């Protein structure tokens, strides 16, 4: 393959990539704003309920089980518990880069670049693993 060939391929790919990327950028921004809104609502509610409790972040206790696992956090948020809402907003935020990786899988599939579909799926699998079973210690 000559340099001219690879250059042309890169230009063609770039043009398609760009419209997808602009759409993706907007999607990510909306995702962040939505996450911030949920965190804000939960935060105001949390402060209204427990504003005068002395803070205690010096002693590490770790969060209770209902604020750790994805399904339990969703459950707490549905039950409109303020801390559950904040945690759910944070989950939405963590989901934004995961969504970008997911869209990249589709992008590479459209380009029929199977090697990169595979590599991107590997990254996606790692992200899903950390959120579902990577509890550690």
């Amino acid at each position, binding site marked *: 393959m000559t340099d001219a060939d*690879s*250059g042309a391929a*890169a*230009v063609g790919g*770039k043009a398609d*990539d760009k419209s997808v*990327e*602009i759409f*993706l*950028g907007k999607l*990510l*921004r909306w*995702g*962040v704003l939505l*996450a*911030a809104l949920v*965190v*804000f609502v*939960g*935060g105001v509610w*949390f*402060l209204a309920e*427990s*504003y*005068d*409790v*002395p*803070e205690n*972040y*010096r002693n*590490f206790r*770790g*969060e*209770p089980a209902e*604020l*750790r696992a994805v399904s339990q956090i969703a459950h707490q948020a549905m039950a409109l518990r303020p801390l559950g809402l*904040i*945690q759910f907003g*944070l*989950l939405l*935020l*963590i989901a*934004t*880069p995961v969504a*970008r*990786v997911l869209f*990249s899988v589709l992008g590479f599939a459209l380009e029929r*670049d199977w*090697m*990169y579909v595979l*590599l991107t799926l*590997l*990254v996606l699998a*790692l*992200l899903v693993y*950390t*959120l579902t079973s*990577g509890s*550690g*210690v």
Partner: protein
Amino acid sequence: MRNRELLPLNTLEFTLVVALGSFAAGMLGSLTGLGGGVVIVPLLTLALGVDIRYAIGASLVSVIATSSGAAAAYLREGYSNMRVGMFLEIATTVGAVCGAFLAGYLHTSIIAIVFGVVLLYSAYASTHTLADPPVGMVPDRIATMLRLDGSYPTSDGLKSYHVRHVPLGFGLMYVAGVLSGLLGIGSGAVKVLAMDQAMKIPFKVSTTTSNFMIGVTAAASAGIYLRRGYIDPGLAMPVMLGVLAGALVGAKILPGAKVRTLRIVFGVVIAALAIEMIFQGVRGKL
């Protein structure tokens, strides 16, 4: 830590202090291009006595917020190289998982000392801009196989470049991932080192690609921190909202800002925080 007895703050006061500090960190981070994450952990641990594990959890959340929030602006430029980003992301996510696991076993004093050393390097890197190395002109066997070469828009049309030293870049990215998982930072300084200096990727391509990678790496660590109970909603809330608001304001006033002076001031602040982190870590106070 010294203020332990002086600050019996209630939750509302504490939240407002953290939100204001995070706002300043987010604004400085976006103006200097260093990200707000590097100062969140020292701010929370040194000034407010927060346990370093909670501080790292909250910092990771803010790193994701700034990365995804800035993506729209970066993606419009059309500089980022998705293949380079995704290939290196394997190294950084695996590294982040290792770093996050390590954080569960290492003593908090050790984490504080490592944090201080990385902060010192960031302070140094922010004030000493490395010379932009010559863009790779010769094709590299591994880079060609992985189709990593790309092109980017310049004032005189599209310019293509060759990616070099893939294994070295991949290894450095693993280190960046470990540091991100262990310390809750974006590791932007190490990522730029790997892409600019080792892989000879043009500066504009490496910074935009790095922004995307920072979010994915932090998400991998954040998942583990969340499941381990290190992400406290009451603390992460003001940090995330504060850093995000600060970054938005920072991006608005950036065109008129004296970036060079700011970088030096910010560099000095970071260096001072770094020395304090190392000192408190050695004393076993963090």
